[in-house]
């Protein structure tokens, strides 16, 4: 079975991937990650038998977002005082500010919340994307939400 023309795949998933990446890496970096996500998808496209194209492309986007954060962490930042950890890039300042706080969470919680609520994947799909059990994905999202609640209450 030939997969549909790639343009149709791009049109069907561009909004989901864009929304996920703006939340994951911020508006400025979203475009580069978007280009890399669909480039990787197109390279694999005809050879890959994909049951769930949306979860597949969001998993790729998640990996590109991780690459972006790692590259930023490696890049030397000319500052007077060296911070303990690279400050996450503040995502698009809009809405109620919750997603800005998500990027400050520990990596597992952040990834689980991004994939579950910015990517709108099920816990099962989040687990497949993260390579963990469904139970672990559920727990990470739960802990992330709990922590956000505590921060917002403080």
């Amino acid at each position, binding site marked *: 079975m030939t997969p549909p023309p790639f343009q149709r795949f791009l049109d069907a998933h561009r909004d989901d991937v864009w929304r996920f990446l703006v939340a994951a890496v911020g508006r400025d970096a979203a*475009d580069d990650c978007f280009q890399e996500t669909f480039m990787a998808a197109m390279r694999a*496209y005809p050879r890959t038998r994909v049951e769930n194209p949306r979860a597949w492309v969001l998993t790729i986007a998640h990996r590109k977002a991780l690459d972006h954060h790692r590259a930023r962490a490696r890049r030397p930042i000319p500052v007077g005082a060296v911070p303990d950890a690279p400050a996450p890039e503040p995502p698009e300042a809009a809405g109620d500010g919750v997603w800005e706080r998500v990027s400050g969470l520990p990596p597992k919680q952040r990834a689980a*919340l991004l994939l579950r609520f910015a990517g709108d994947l099920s816990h099962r799909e989040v687990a497949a994307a993260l390579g963990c059990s469904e139970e672990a994905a559920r727990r990470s999202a739960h802990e992330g939400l709990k922590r956000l609640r505590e921060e917002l209450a403080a």
Partner: protein
Amino acid sequence: MTDRLAPPPFDPAAAAAAAARFAATAPADVSYALVDSPVGTLVAARTERGLACLSYEDHDGGVDAVLDRLAAKLSPRILEAPARLDDVRRELDEYFEHRRTAFDLPLDWALVGPFGRKVLHATARIPFGEVSTYAKVAAEAGNPKASRAAGNALGSNPMPIVVPCHRVLHTGGKGIGNYTGGVHRKEALLRLEGVLLGP
């Protein structure tokens, strides 16, 4: 905040722009564009070798069906990249404005079988403003008895206008013959080339 997060704010125009940038620059196996012409909208598609397909958009099920066929027969790595079809658009414009009588576009014959290729090569040699017959084209393709097969090859010509199958007519006063995209288009092209007179 409850037990879920509302999706982040989202600008559909920015997503569309990012997708357009991707389609314009990514190395697709097949690039396509819609091209307007006086005989209707055309779906033009090319590979790195050249123009592979020029379909009447309202014929054979529309753009989606054309793209599905290209995905199955050439490659599913297909993107809409209008700038990559600029030469096709320019030469077609010149042809319809009476400033061009022959096309210089590189062609990719991947969608055409061996006999069809012979038929269409013979067809491509018919000059602007002249016509031939199914029987003659079949003979030139090496099989004078195969005028019906030649007719089929012309009917499935994937690059009409550029490979001028509209210049091949019936013999013996049976009308001008069929055409991919409809006889009215064959008549319009023959009028443009001065073969048929009238409005």
